[in-house]
Structures are given as structure tokens and as C-alpha cells.
């Protein structure tokens, strides 16, 4: 597989403006209910610049709801969500769209557009963000570069149905990276993949993080994924940040609710 990327400076341009140790995402006291289903009950989280933070939680614990609050796809009932210093729910549509171009979002099921080729899928985010790309009119090199990053340059003219699950996830990752985001949100990057393909995806995420210094928030219920990639972890239980710490700290915890995650 081909993980090499071109000039890193070209990808992340404005990361230098954020000093290390600054928070890129801050969630304070987040509440969200769907009818009587109280999903989030005062969740708190901070993602530091350049950090790999893993949020783990059981299926249905509200991980996807939480991550969707970060891009304004879900409106919280209460609480503040700050991304790159801006309060998401106070922005007008235009500013929100601009901010969104700095946030990469990898969806749980890849979410490739079925009716478009791989190339069109990758071009799609660029249609509304021409400003960000400057004077780029020919998108071909950008698309090619992004696909080469995930080792799939030869799939450019295929339709998503012609790809395997792992290839789809990689194309989705390439699509996420094409606008050179500062923060990447991964919603279960390894769900539905076999262990070997999962490992490949994790390697890919690590290489992206290492080369470009992007901040990553990774949501998963896959313990192996968390062990390999996390610098810090938060356990989402009962709608709150139940426990925080490094993988080794949490895996040695005697709290039954924490321990349940690490039992094989």
C-alpha cells in the first residue's frame, strides 16, 4: 500500500497559527434528547491541537449524536460546542459552511454518493469551497493526490458499488482529506471491516496524523483500535464523560462500568 504523501506544508497551511496546547474542540455540558430518550446528559470533552482522542461507548450510547453536534448536523438541547474557537450553534449558514471545510468528517458507513464515480465523489466537497483552494481550477491533480494518499489512484473512474467495504472507507477518507481539514472526526472508522482491513485503516489514520499534525477525534467501540491510536480516551457512559485517561490507565480501572469495555 502506498502511504507516502507529498509536501506536508502544502496540506496543512494554517495549523501553525494554532499554538500547541490549544483546544480545537470544546464541548461543555452537552444535552440531547429524542423524545423520552435522553441520549446525552451533560457531556464534556476537550480535544487539544494535534491530539488523537478516542471516545468509546456502547452501541446506542450517543457517540454519533455527539460527533454530529460538532458539525451542526444535530442541534443540542443545551450546552456549548466550540470548534476551532467558534461556537457552532451561533453561526450563520455561510460561516458554518466555511468552518465545516476545516473539519473532516468520516462517516460510520463511508457515505459515498452512490450515483457518482469515485472522482466525482472527491470533487464534490470542492464545488462550494473554491475560495479555500485558491486559484485551483483543475481539480484532477488534487483528486489524484488524495487517492494516492490512500493507495487507490486506480479506482478513480469506478462507481462506489464496484468497491469493497475497505476500499470504500479509504475513498471516504480521501474525500475527507481533500479540503485539507485541521480537525478530522472519525465516526467508527473500523466498523464493519475485517481485522486486517481495520488495521490498514488505522495505519492510514496514523500516517495522516503524523505527517500533517491534524487533530483527530476518533469514535469507536473497537478496543484494539483505541489501544493503537489513542493518546487519551474518554468513555461515554449514560450520556456523560464517565471516565478519562490513557488506554493503560483505563484498562487497569476496577470500576465495573469501565472494566466492561476492556473485558474480552
Amino acid at each position, binding site marked *: 500500500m502506498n502511504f507516502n504523501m507529498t509536501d506536508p506544508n502544502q496540506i496543512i497551511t494554517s495549523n501553525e497559527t494554532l499554538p500547541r496546547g490549544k483546544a480545537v474542540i470544546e464541548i461543555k455540558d452537552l444535552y440531547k434528547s429524542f423524545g423520552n430518550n435522553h441520549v446525552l446528559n451533560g457531556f464534556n470533552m476537550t480535544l487539544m491541537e494535534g491530539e488523537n482522542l478516542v471516545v468509546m461507548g456502547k452501541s446506542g450510547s450517543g457517540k454519533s449524536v455527539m460527533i*454530529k453536534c460538532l*458539525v451542526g*448536523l444535530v442541534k443540542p438541547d443545551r450546552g456549548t460546542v466550540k470548534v476551532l474557537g467558534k461556537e457552532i450553534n451561533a453561526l450563520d449558514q455561510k460561516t458554518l*459552511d466555511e468552518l*465545516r*471545510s476545516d*473539519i473532516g*468528517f468520516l*462517516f*460510520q*458507513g463511508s*457515505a*459515498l*454518493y*452512490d*450515483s457518482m464515480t469515485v472522482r466525482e465523489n472527491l470533487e*464534490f*466537497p470542492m*464545488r*462550494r*469551497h473554491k475560495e479555500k483552494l485558491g486559484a485551483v481550477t483543475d481539480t484532477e491533480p488534487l483528486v489524484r493526490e488524495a487517492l494516492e494518499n490512500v493507495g487507490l489512484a486506480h479506482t478513480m473512474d469506478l462507481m462506489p458499488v464496484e468497491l469493497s467495504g475497505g476500499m470504500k472507507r479509504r475513498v471516504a477518507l480521501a474525500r475527507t482529506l481533500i*479540503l485539507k481539514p485541521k480537525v478530522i472526526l472519525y465516526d467508527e472508522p473500523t466498523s464493519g471491516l475485517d481485522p486486517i482491513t481495520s488495521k490498514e485503516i488505522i495505519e492510514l489514520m496514523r500516517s495522516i496524523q503524523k505527517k500533517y499534525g491534524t487533530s483527530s477525534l476518533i469514535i469507536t467501540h473497537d478496543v484494539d483500535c483505541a489501544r493503537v491510536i489513542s493518546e487519551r480516551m474518554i468513555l461515554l457512559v449514560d450520556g456523560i464523560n464517565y471516565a478519562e485517561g490513557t488506554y493503560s490507565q483505563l484498562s487497569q480501572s476496577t470500576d465495573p462500568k469501565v472494566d466492561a469495555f476492556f473485558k474480552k
Partner: protein
Amino acid sequence: MGNTSTLFKGLKEFFIEIGDLSNFATRFFKEVLKPPFEFKELMRQCYQMGNRSLVLVTITGFIIGLVLTLQSRPTLIQFGAVSWMPNMVGISIVREIGPVITALICAGRIASGIGAELGSMRVTEQIDAMEVSGTNPFKYLVITRIMATTLMIPILVIYGDLVALYGSALVENLKGDVSFQLYFNTVFDALSFSDLVPATIKSFFFGFAIGLVGCFKGYYSKKGTAGVGVAANTAVVMASLLLFVIDFIAVFISDIFYEL
């Protein structure tokens, strides 16, 4: 007792649904004139809808024209009025049968297609992905599709009318020795402006209804693969019902104009 409460609940759900559908339509009218416009996607949708329905409309139109003529013949012959065939068939096809049959066929084909497509896009988070990447999915997916059906259904209706008339002319040509030219001349003489205009206006509303219901059902599809099936299915049922309601209203209104 139990029956009354289920009936009441069903009625309540029905009215909630109607309310949601009207909100959806309101949103369409609010956003349709605001830029950016997705012309390319609109053209693609128009082409696809025309392309996908053409064969079906051709077959049904032809058979309707054929059958209608074959079945009316004995009766008209009995009354010695077989020469009135082009007038009778022409008017009934253009005014009523053509638009309704074509729209129903398209409700089955297009509304269900849109419902399933948008439903699966909703379920697999493609609509969310679109929104996150800075494209308004309502504009890109919904407005283009509703516009496309509103433009294409009238065209398909006119085409379907012509095919049906051809089917009818074929019967008259084979059984009654009426030339195609004579047949069509008689039809066009018999048809007046007041037959064509209401039928065409009605077809625009049919097209709007088909697109609206298909998009509404798909866009708000419930999670899970079952949701996609439900979206496609209820889109057809709701669109077909709406077509008859619109037809009833249209006939009612044009009737007032005929009286004047």
C-alpha cells in the same frame, strides 16, 4: 370503542402528515428562487426521468388508445356514430385519460424511485455528508427533483396523448378504413383550446405532486433498510392519492369555466 380510538389516531396521523407535507412544500417555494441554482443536476434529473419513463408511457399510452377504441366501436356502430370516434377518443384522452394514466404510471415509476433513492441516501448518511461538505442537500437533491418532475410530467403527458391517439388511429385505420391523416385532422378539429389548457395546467400540478411526495418520503426516511422500502412504497400510495385529489379539484374548476 377500540375502533373509534384507532380511527381517531389514524385521522390524527393523516393530518399531521398533510401538515408536514405542506411545510415541505413551503420550504420548496422559499428556497427555489434563492441562488445557488443547481442547473446541471436539474438537467441530469430531467433526462433521467424522461428516459426511465419513456418506454412505460409508450406502452401504456398505445394500449389505452387501442383498447378504448376497440371497446367503443360496437356501441358507436350501433348508434351509427362511428365517424365520431376521433372526437370522442381524442377528447377523452386529452382531457382526462392521458394525463391521469401517464401521471399514475410516473407516480409508480418516478415517485417510488425518488423515495428509494433519497431514502437510501438518508439512511447511509449521504445527505449528512453533503451538508457537511457545504452543499445544501435540500437544494441539490429536493429542489432539482421537484422541478424536474414538474417540467417532465407535462411533456410525458403530451407524448402519451399522442401515442394513445396513434393507437386509436391504428384501430380505425385497420377496422374502419380511416386514413391516419383524416383521423388526426378530425381529432385536432375537435379539440379546442379549452381542452388543452386545463389538461396541461393539471399535468404541471401532477408533476409537482409526484416530485414533492417522492422527495418528502425519501428525505425524511426512517433509519434502517426497512425505512427505504417504506419510503418508496408510501411515496407511490400518497402520490397516487394526491393525483386523484388534484384531478377532482381540476375537473371541478374547469367545469365552472365551461359553464360560463
